[in-house]
């Protein structure tokens, strides 16, 4: 358990010091909002359009973080260290997953207010939306860690990661957008029918966390 904490603390500290991922993600999100404003020719959003914009932005921003998740381990020999140390290799993967969730939460802390500021007439739906996004983040992290580990050893990492990650995240998009749409409705958040989408997200998270736990060993082997 302490190995998990050590690795997680290390990652967060490194991120805080080098600011590799999160600022880029935040900047990307803001630029994406501008693109959407002009691409959709809309100045205010609600309902399904708003849900689509915020979720697409978060998913694409996640790619930036997933790309960089294991790079330090690869370059500094972290994989070998984990293999040699008397430590459960699951700690590495769990720490990376939690770190990714942390980056996404920070991103959302910046992007959601910006989104509300730029597009929303009514901010009431943002807080429940943040809750939905937290569940979505868990799903993104579960597959993101797998895809990142696969990608870090391949030649065209920046190409492989989005190619693998985005189709896998389609159910997350479907469920999160399904939940977000009533929450961002024009007349204020509507909680009707959100439950089934939350259940779908929870199912997705459970399945892929289980899969990740089952296969991580094989990603770590030399």
């Amino acid at each position, binding site marked *: 358990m302490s190995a998990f904490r050590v690795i997680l603390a290390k990652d967060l500290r490194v991120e805080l010091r080098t600011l590799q991922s999160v600022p880029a993600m935040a900047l990307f999100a803001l630029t994406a909002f501008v693109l959407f404003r002009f691409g959709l020719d809309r100045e205010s959003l609600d309902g399904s359009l708003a849900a689509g914009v915020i979720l697409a932005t978060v998913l694409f921003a996640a790619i930036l973080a997933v790309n960089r998740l294991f790079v330090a381990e690869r370059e500094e020999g972290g994989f070998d260290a984990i293999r040699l140390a008397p430590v459960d290799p699951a700690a590495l993967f769990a720490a990376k997953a939690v770190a990714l969730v942390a980056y996404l939460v920070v991103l959302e802390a910046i992007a959601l207010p910006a989104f509300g500021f730029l597009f929303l007439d009514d901010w009431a739906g943002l807080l429940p939306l943040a809750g939905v996004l937290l569940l979505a983040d868990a799903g993104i992290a579960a597959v993101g860690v797998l895809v990142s580990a*696969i990608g870090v050893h*391949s030649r065209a990492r920046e190409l492989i990661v989005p*190619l693998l990650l985005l189709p896998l995240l389609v159910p997350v998009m479907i469920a999160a957008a399904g939940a977000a749409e009533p929450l961002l409705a024009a007349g204020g958040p509507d909680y009707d029918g959100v439950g089934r989408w939350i259940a779908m997200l929870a199912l997705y998270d459970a399945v892929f966390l289980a899969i990740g736990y089952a296969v991580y060993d094989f990603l770590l082997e030399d």
Partner: protein
Amino acid sequence: MFRVSLLSLRNLALASVALLVGGFALVFFYAPNDADQGFIQKIFYLHVPLALCALGGFIAAAVHAIRHLRSGDPVHDARAYVSIHISIIFGLAVLVTGSIWARASWGKWWVWDEPTLVSFLIVFLLYATYYPLRFAIEDRDRQARYASVFAITAGAFVPLNFIAVRMAESLVHPRTFATAEGGMPGEMWLTFAVAIAGMALLWVTLVRFELMAKSARARISRVRRALDAEAPSAAPSRIAPAVPSRAGAG
């Protein structure tokens, strides 16, 4: 690896021809026309079996991948690879026949409110990344292992994806396929059954066919290496010492 038995490649091929041709004959000479869709409905006897076999193939690939990770035996990796390969080809056929059906029924070449078709597109896009993934990893063992991890992950993804898409579509449109399938007379069910059986046998036949071709190529390489190893040191650059012909196996 292949025993000449009841399940030999030749017998499989013959059986799939018999069932598939028989099935298609039933489609056009026996099964009645659908009340709603008319003659167009005949496409389903082709489209649905292809889809079921492709999906079954992806699940089979995941099973092979699990066995590969457990045992480390590359045979299972080869089976996973070929299973995905054939299933992707079937998947392409599913999408094209689905598109033709959409055009015939709705006048458009694609419809977003047919959940099975949309799910299939997503699954197809995911499995299409299997090839770039394999080509991007140079180390052979690692490539096989990572490909197996991918096959397992993608296999778990397939049912989740279908559930999610179904949930998204069912709010807006009732499942059009259900209305076509609901209340199908016995003749239609029989035709479907034969078509599905024939398609499944075709899938297995093609997989076996492909595996046999790969096996032959591998054996040729081994023989080639064995012959070269047996050669007296004719070329000065040869490093390998003279070893028995079993050298360089695998």
